[in-house]
């Protein structure tokens, strides 16, 4: 059996950057040359809840409103925390170029909206498959087995849904609470011992402590996403040798604890401008 010596665990920021811009994609692909890339079930969940969810939001808005420039301007200018990701999707994924919204006529706007919507209908199901089978060499899911991660987005009669219902004992089969009590709580202890100044790590430790002390705890995917970095890093423990992320503050500490080589990805070309 072939022993893989260089196994790269990809944080979700890396997966998103590969889809956001060509320059970033090329840089990341160069760094990953020679690595066996892995993701985890929580990173697939994160991908569904961010990139796919925003594609679906745009699709539903285009169907409802019908005018491309109106929807584009509203979604990109909003104060929603994912408005930058939406801009990337409009600029890069859709590849639909509209004249100025001050000049475009209604009919053209409707047609562009229809084309953009159909492009998303073509692409959304395949994006999910891309992550699970081409974006990485394999998805490690044996430890937590996130149920939401295994459910692809689906199209009903008109609208897409990301398929992210609130997790309850009745609709999930994952082992996240068990995983937290058996493994994640020890990580939280080490993080507290070492000390940190990250609000996100603090919130994660509190979540783990709450689950560990409550035998009836039943957390949902939003909780898992808040503790995403720790859960992703733990899911790959013993299998990954390197971890790639743009986020130093949490990942540098986690890599030190879990014995990964941390590879920080940055884009100096963008910073020059």
């Amino acid at each position, binding site marked *: 059996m072939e022993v893989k010596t260089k196994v790269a665990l990809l944080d979700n920021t890396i997966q998103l950057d590969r889809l956001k*811009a060509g320059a970033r994609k090329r840089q990341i692909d160069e760094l990953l040359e020679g690595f066996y890339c892995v993701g985890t079930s929580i990173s697939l969940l994160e991908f569904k809840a961010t990139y796919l969810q925003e594609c679906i939001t745009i699709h539903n808005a285009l169907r409802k409103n019908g005018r491309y420039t109106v929807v584009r301007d509203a979604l990109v200018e909003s104060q929603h925390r994912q408005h930058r990701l939406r801009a990337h999707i409009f600029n890069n*994924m859709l*590849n639909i170029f509209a004249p100025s919204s001050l000049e475009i006529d209604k009919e053209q706007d409707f047609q562009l909206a229809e*084309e953009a919507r*159909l492009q998303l*209908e*073509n*692409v959304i199901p*395949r994006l999910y498959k*891309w992550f699970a089978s081409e974006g990485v060499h394999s998805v490690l899911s044996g430890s937590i087995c996130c149920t939401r991660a295994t459910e692809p987005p689906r199209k009903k009669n008109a609208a897409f849904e990301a398929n992210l219902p609130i997790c309850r004992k009745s609709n999930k089969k994952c082992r996240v609470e068990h995983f937290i009590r058996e493994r994640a709580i020890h990580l939280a202890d080490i993080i507290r011992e070492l000390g940190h100044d990250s609000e996100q790590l603090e919130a994660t430790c509190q979540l783990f402590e709450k689950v560990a002390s409550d035998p009836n705890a039943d957390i949902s995917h939003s909780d898992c996403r808040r503790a995403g970095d720790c859960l992703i890093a733990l899911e790959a423990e013993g299998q990954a040798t390197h971890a790639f992320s743009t986020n130093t503050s949490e990942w540098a500490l986690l890599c030190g604890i879990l014995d990964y080589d941390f590879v920080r990805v940055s884009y100096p070309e963008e910073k020059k401008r």
Partner: protein
Amino acid sequence: MITQKNGRLSVRPPTASNVVYDEASRQGNGSVSEPTTGTVSADSAIPWLKSDATTRTAEIRKAATRGYADFRRTCDDLAEAALHADDYLLNGEVSDEGLEVIVQVDELLERLYQCDWGEGESVKRVVVAIKSQLNNVRWTERHVGFLKDAAFKIRNRYLINDQFVEECLDLIEAHNLDLFRGVLSSEGIRRYRLEEIHEDEP
């Protein structure tokens, strides 16, 4: 009783529930008289209903035939234009003279988009998929190969549905093109810079 379902008219024989009886005749010999108000009996309605339904069906069939004829004609033109793209390949790229083919293909794809054929929006999805690979990029052998295969594939298919759309998306990957293409490929980018020209320079 006349009912309409899915655009088709059907006639049920009159029963006690759907025929208005004339009170006088009921009290008489017990036979059913012609209804005076309400539902029209089946026998008297059939002739004009039959011709109306036949006309409507004929109209639907004519529209479908016209739709398929438009679709097929456009596909034939697209396949022919795709073959011409080969004539303009130079060093692996379509030359500037090939712009005429690109414009022609663009116009034909617009025509195909408007065709009234296929299940739901399948034809439109196919056109959008093809355009997503050909818009705003310098055409190379891969793009021309993809266009030819897609054009002939759609030309040779009668039933255009979701399954066919998936086959076209598979075709993109088979030609090593990027389905999630949205970033400008390096072939398409040209760089410009402003240079100061001094007085003594020509």
